[in-house]
């Protein structure tokens, strides 16, 4: 039976259980003599019955489904060995051929040997499927029968139901943890495999990065090919340029908007910043690659400088523009948290507005601003599309903003979007880079969030 059909059947059964339980309790209520006590509504008994039918069965289905594929695979491999069919090919490919034969034509196109295996595969699949259906359905039915016997009018059905719902809500809240765990495990697991092939030290401190050449068997793991230092330097160079653009502009525009601008300017500038924040990064990437980079190259040429057509400057500049609204809104939050009476205290002594801002507000808001800059840095380091489209692929170890550099994110994308065997050192390297990226941004985020929270508490 197909999974969707099975789930449908379970739902019908759950609805049936709901009505049964409700009916039973309603009848029991009607037979009671006194009516003074407030009773639990019959529908709650129904809900509990429906959930009893549904939740354990679905959970069981999920686990059986997870176990199904490995089980079938091992059965088939056993069969192949037992029936003396020589499987010269890679076992995975062999199995894949068989499994992908989903139409009679495709089955007919298989070799006789494989057809035999196909038959066997079909048998096993059918039996496992049947077994799963029987287990899941009988679990649901048994639980409901057991539950129906136990419930009586004294059962605190509403409280049970609410506890279950609360559990589901908690589960939803815990998805954040599961996501983090998922991220950590996926990058950590593949990274350890990578570091099994390439020593961690040569990855962290090697200065040559050329993963393309490492496909050749004799070069796998050669220390020269996976030195990530040029990537780290390139990432930092572009992020630095981006911060150089976005921090002063973002901070000053926040200050101007909150301390100087009249309502008219604010009415124009706020939406502009919001639009800048809402533009997808791929659009910035397009703008950087096709408009800004050629412009900078031509400008440089007219001044007699040699500028790469994928210069770090172009990518950094556009990334800076992208982050302006981010810095601006963070600074705005931070500045508006500074109590009004500090402003008045300074103005009351005869300070000008700029003196008040520079000498009182900014020092008072400094921790918050630093936290904002750290968050912006984390954003710049993790930004992908702008650099993928506007920065280069060549891993030059340089800090010259006019040359082309590559970044961690660019390399992750290039390594994983080709048609590669998933297990090659090349794709695994992408996960090692991902691990670096995740750890770096995690540290920056945690520090920044901590600093900003402490800062807020100070004025609360």
């Amino acid at each position, binding site marked *: 039976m197909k999974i969707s059909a099975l789930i449908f059947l379970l739902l019908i059964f759950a609805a049936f259980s709901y009505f049964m339980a409700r009916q039973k309790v309603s009848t029991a209520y009607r037979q009671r003599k006194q009516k003074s006590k407030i009773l639990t509504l019959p529908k709650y008994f129904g809900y509990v019955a429906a959930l009893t039918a549904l939740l354990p069965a679905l959970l069981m289905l999920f686990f059986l489904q997870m176990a199904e594929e490995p089980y079938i695979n091992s059965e088939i491999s056993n069969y192949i060995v037992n029936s003396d069919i020589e499987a010269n090919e890679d076992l995975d490919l062999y199995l894949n051929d068989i499994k992908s034969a989903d139409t009679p034509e495709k089955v007919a196109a298989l070799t006789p040997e494989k057809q035999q295996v196909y038959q066997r595969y079909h048998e096993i699949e059918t039996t496992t499927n049947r077994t799963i259906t029987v287990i899941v359905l009988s679990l649901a039915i048994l639980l409901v029968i057991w539950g129906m016997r136990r419930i009586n009018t004294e059962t605190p059905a509403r409280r049970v139901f609410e506890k279950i719902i609360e559990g589901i809500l908690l589960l939803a809240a815990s998805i954040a943890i599961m996501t983090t765990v998922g991220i950590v495990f996926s990058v950590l697991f593949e990274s350890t495999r990578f570091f099994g092939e390439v020593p961690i030290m040569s990855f962290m401190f090697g200065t040559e990065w050329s993963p393309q050449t490492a496909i050749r068997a004799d070069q796998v793991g050669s220390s020269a090919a996976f030195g990530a230092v040029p990537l780290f330097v390139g990432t930092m160079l572009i992020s630095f340029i981006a911060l150089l653009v976005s921090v002063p502009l973002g901070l000053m525009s926040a200050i101007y908007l909150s301390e100087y601008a009249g309502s008219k300017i604010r009415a124009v500038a706020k939406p502009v910043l919001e639009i800048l924040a809402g533009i997808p990064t791929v659009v910035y990437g397009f703008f950087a690659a096709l408009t800004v980079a050629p412009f900078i190259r031509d400008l440089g040429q007219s001044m007699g400088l040699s500028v790469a057509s994928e210069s770090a400057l172009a990518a950094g500049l556009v990334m800076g523009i992208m982050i302006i609204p981010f810095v601006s809104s963070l600074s705005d939050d931070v500045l508006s948290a500074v109590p009004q*009476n500090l402003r008045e205290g300074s103005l009351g002594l*005869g300070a000008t507005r700029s003196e008040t801002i520079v000498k009182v507000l900014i*020092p008072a808001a400094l921790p918050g601003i630093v936290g904002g800059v750290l968050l912006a840095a984390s954003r710049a380091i993790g930004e992908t599309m702008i650099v993928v489209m506007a920065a280069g692929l060549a891993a030059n170890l340089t800090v010259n903003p006019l040359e082309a550099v590559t970044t961690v994110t660019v390399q992750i994308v290039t390594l994983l979007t080709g048609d590669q065997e998933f297990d090659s050192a090349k794709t695994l390297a992408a996960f090692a880079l991902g691990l670096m990226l995740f750890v770096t941004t995690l540290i920056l985020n945690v520090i920044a969030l901590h600093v900003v929270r402490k800062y807020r508490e100070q004025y609360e």
Partner: protein
Amino acid sequence: MNEAVLNDLAEPNKPDHAGPETEDSLNIEYTDTVGQPLCEEAKIRTKEVNVYYADNQAIHNVSLDIGENEVIALIGPSGCGKSTYLRTLNRMNDTIDICRVEGQILLDGEDIYTKKQDPVLLRARVGMVFQKPNPFPKSIYDNVAYGPRIHGLTRNKSELDDLVEESLTKAGLFQEVKDRLDAPGTGLSGGQQQRLCIARTIAVQPEVILMDEPASALDPIATAKIEELINELKENFTIVIVTHSMQQAARVSQRTAYFHMGRLIEVGETDQIFTNPAHELTEKYITGRFG
């Protein structure tokens, strides 16, 4: 940015002393201010001042002189406009967009609301101490040195050191903090913070000091110290103090002005106001029948 202030000041529109007495008081016809609102040697003269927040009028036609080197107390029920009036004297109301001031306010005979007048210079001459102590999150020393530094009042470090020490001494704080001038001003107790704010104000050596309920956030002992300090300061400064405590007004001021619903009701010698008020509203307030 000015919401906090707005909430604080927009109150005149909703009198919070509702009750039968209010009804009563509203029936009394407002006449011109009773008593002696004018004086001969006036430091500040205000003539027919009206203040509006957008369309709401907060101050109605107030004319009052503030004499040279006197301490004048502004009293009245909360929301009567006394704080608003005080803030017009050094144009702190400029920081509120919707606030509009009409009438004349003269400092040493010069109108402070002309375009020519500079609010920065004005506030250097007319300093202000706020209701809630608001030391900057800097060291004690830097708090006091802030004003002299931005105004360029001293020529070198030692002069600045002297000025800081004198100001702290005048504020009666020096003995308590002389060993920890580098400690943050925010680490002091409430009363010390307020005296620090006063020291900060007098370090600029203004001619007039405006005090907006300077002791309302403090305990009685700290309050006593502040009052003592005001008594000393009146040697050198003209002081306008807003207070909701009649006892405090009686203790520190020579003259007292009574405000009610945005109007200046009565002005007179402090003794006279508290013992023999001329206006019915003043009497009701003094005797604690509302406010």
